[in-house]
């Protein structure tokens, strides 16, 4: 058993795509800015190059067996946790993992989940532009993926190519957990919910956002807000982020 775990960790370290340094910057997320605010500061951090794979996750389970399917309690995962885990090759991204499980994995790796701001900041870049989110061709490519019917080999695809930061597959492979995925005060049509924020009244959700043209980001925020921290989905995975020590 120990030998298997050792072998696993060897294979993982050999195959892992590692992480890259994300420079500090400023970014205007689709939601969250107050009136008059142009962007939020994003401190420097590190981000995994690719989503966590099944091989990576198997190494975690070998060391943290309390997160095994059937062992992790229903207070932290739903009934579909890790279903179909072994049906795809070890190189495929791990899916059917809850927020709590993803967070435990990243903590085990010495990291954490990226915040939604960090994730969107990294995902706004393409191969040549740091923020392509307002560019029609960029949005079209992403929406093309969102609109594509699911196929069995979807999780074996490479995903979006290395962006200017060196991060891959932020689009075109899996949806990804973020540390504050639910931190959006969206609640259906607020006229029904008695919610006071006109930002989310049907139709005005788009006009109240920072970038009306970034419909792809709107889809991601909608997707995240549909989840609970126990949710697991066949095409929902994650990658980890890491704090960097501030320069003295």
């Amino acid at each position: 058993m120990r030998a298997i775990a050792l072998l696993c960790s060897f294979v993982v370290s050999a195959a892992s795509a590692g992480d890259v340094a994300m420079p500090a910057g400023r970014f205007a997320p689709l939601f969250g800015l107050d009136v008059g605010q142009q962007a939020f500061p994003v401190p420097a951090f590190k981000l995994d190059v690719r989503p966590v794979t099944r091989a990576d996750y198997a190494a975690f389970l070998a060391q943290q067996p309390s997160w095994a399917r059937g062992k992790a309690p229903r207070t932290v995962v739903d009934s579909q946790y890790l279903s179909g885990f072994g049906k795809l090759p070890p190189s495929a991204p791990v899916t059917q993992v809850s927020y709590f499980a993803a967070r435990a994995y990243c903590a085990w790796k010495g990291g954490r989940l990226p915040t939604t701001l960090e994730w969107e900041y990294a995902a706004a870049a393409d191969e040549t532009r740091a923020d392509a989110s307002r560019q029609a061709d960029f949005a079209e490519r992403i929406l093309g993926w969102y609109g594509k019917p699911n196929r069995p080999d979807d999780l074996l695809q490479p995903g979006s190519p290395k962006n200017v930061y060196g991060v891959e597959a932020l689009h075109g492979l899996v949806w990804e957990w973020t540390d504050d995925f639910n931190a959006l005060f969206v609640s259906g049509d607020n006229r029904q919910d008695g919610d006071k924020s006109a930002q989310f009244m049907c139709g005005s959700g788009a006009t109240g956002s920072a970038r009306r043209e970034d419909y792809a980001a709107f889809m991601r925020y909608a997707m995240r807000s549909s989840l609970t921290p126990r949710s697991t989905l066949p095409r929902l995975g994650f990658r980890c982020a890491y704090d960097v020590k501030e320069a003295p």
Partner: protein
Amino acid sequence: MKSLILSALLANAAAAGGDVKNVLALPTSWRAEGGAATSLEALKGRWYALSFIYTSCAGSCPLTTKKLKRLDDTLAQAGKPLELVVVSLDPTHDTPAELVKYRDRYALKDAARWRILVGDDAQVRTLTMLLEFKYTKNPESGVIAHDNTVFLVNPKGDVVTSMSSLDQPMEAFVAAVPTPKPSAPRKGTGTKAR
């Protein structure tokens, strides 16, 4: 022995019944108002109300605090006093000195049933996620947008019911708090050493 097995089976059945919100499902660590380390495990075995505020909050938190005070009074009058656990959403700002000011501002100086917990951001995120309580901090203005919910937690850490700390009546919440049995030792009802 038989009853032990039965209760274990029942516990499993409850867990299989769907999403369960339990504040002890993942460990979290906190500091009490004076700065001493504490945990929610320490409250295991008692009923308590759990809510979230931050002391510099000018929006809904004053209303939450006032609602908790009314809840405290109502429960005491009904003969079922309850501990009120208030967790800070702003650990960097809510220092022990700020918490003293908060107690002063709301005339909570001698409110022995209240305990205010401060953790770090990761602890707050873990606990709020276990409760599906939403909050987000604007990194520039420091303003925290957040839900307004008071949770009733049972001795096992399960959330039994909850209410809005703003406009929802508290009758159902009060009714869900059990009356302490006269013979049982009155755990957690104002015996906190200060």
